[in-house]
């Protein structure tokens, strides 16, 4: 299992706790940050309750909801691993504060990808991306293979070969040797 919290690439990664509810809700109700995710009610108690239920799924190793912060513990973003089914996992629920100059969300994606394939030893990562989120579609198509689509979403998967290419590409950018 992953040892958390952990420090990587100048960020701190840990699992979400109930007292993160206000931060998450703030991002989910910010129209600029959440325009490509499902809308939620601005209800802090409902968000806390959702996290309480999630913590039970986390305890059963069914789901992991990560939060990353800067080195001063200022929260910056979240992402989630769910639909764990044998060697396959789905990643999603990405939300991040704007980071104009720090490449923080790319660092977080590098961390997430490494966790999936190196520490949790999954063989396949699946995602779905809103078609209107054109940049994200272009980004994921660099490493993922499209497996389907519907009116709203594109569905993709990445296996270990894609992971290896992605890991090298992002490491060369974030942490060049």
């Amino acid at each position, binding site marked *: 299992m992953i040892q958390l919290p952990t420090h990587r690439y100048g960020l701190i990664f840990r699992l979400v706790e109930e007292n993160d509810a206000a931060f998450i809700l703030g991002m989910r109700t910010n129209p600029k940050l959440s325009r490509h995710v499902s809308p939620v009610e601005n209800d802090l108690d409902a968000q806390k309750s959702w996290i309480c239920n999630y913590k039970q799924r986390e305890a059963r190793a069914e789901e992991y909801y990560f939060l990353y912060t800067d080195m001063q513990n200022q929260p910056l973003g979240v992402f989630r691993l769910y639909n764990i089914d044998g060697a396959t996992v789905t990643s999603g629920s990405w939300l*991040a504060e*704007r*980071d*104009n*100059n*720090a*490449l*923080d*969300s*790319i660092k977080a994606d590098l961390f997430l990808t490494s966790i999936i394939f190196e520490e949790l030893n999954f063989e396949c990562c699946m995602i779905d991306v809103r078609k209107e989120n*054109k*940049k*994200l579609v*272009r*980004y994921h198509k*660099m490493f993922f293979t499209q497996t389907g689509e519907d009116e709203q979403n594109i569905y993709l998967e990445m296996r270990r070969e894609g992971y290896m290419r992605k890991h090298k*590409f992002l490491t*060369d*950018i*974030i942490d*060049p040797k």
Partner: protein
Amino acid sequence: MNIETFVKEFAEQFDEIPDEPFTADTLFKENEEWSSMTALLVIAMIDQSYSVRLTGDDVRKSLTINDIYTIVVSKANA
């Protein structure tokens, strides 16, 4: 390699057409659309079109499109 083509390829990484067209002197980080994701797509475009791998630091220390272009030229000729 020329700066006019480079500016055009750089601008293509943005979804929205800005009010002021991009030029070599555009302060690209002031664009509303600039983000980690845009940076990564710019880096990927440069990797594909110019066979040059920029780093996060290259992007961090650049302010204008010309700053990025200068780094690409320098790395391509290294």
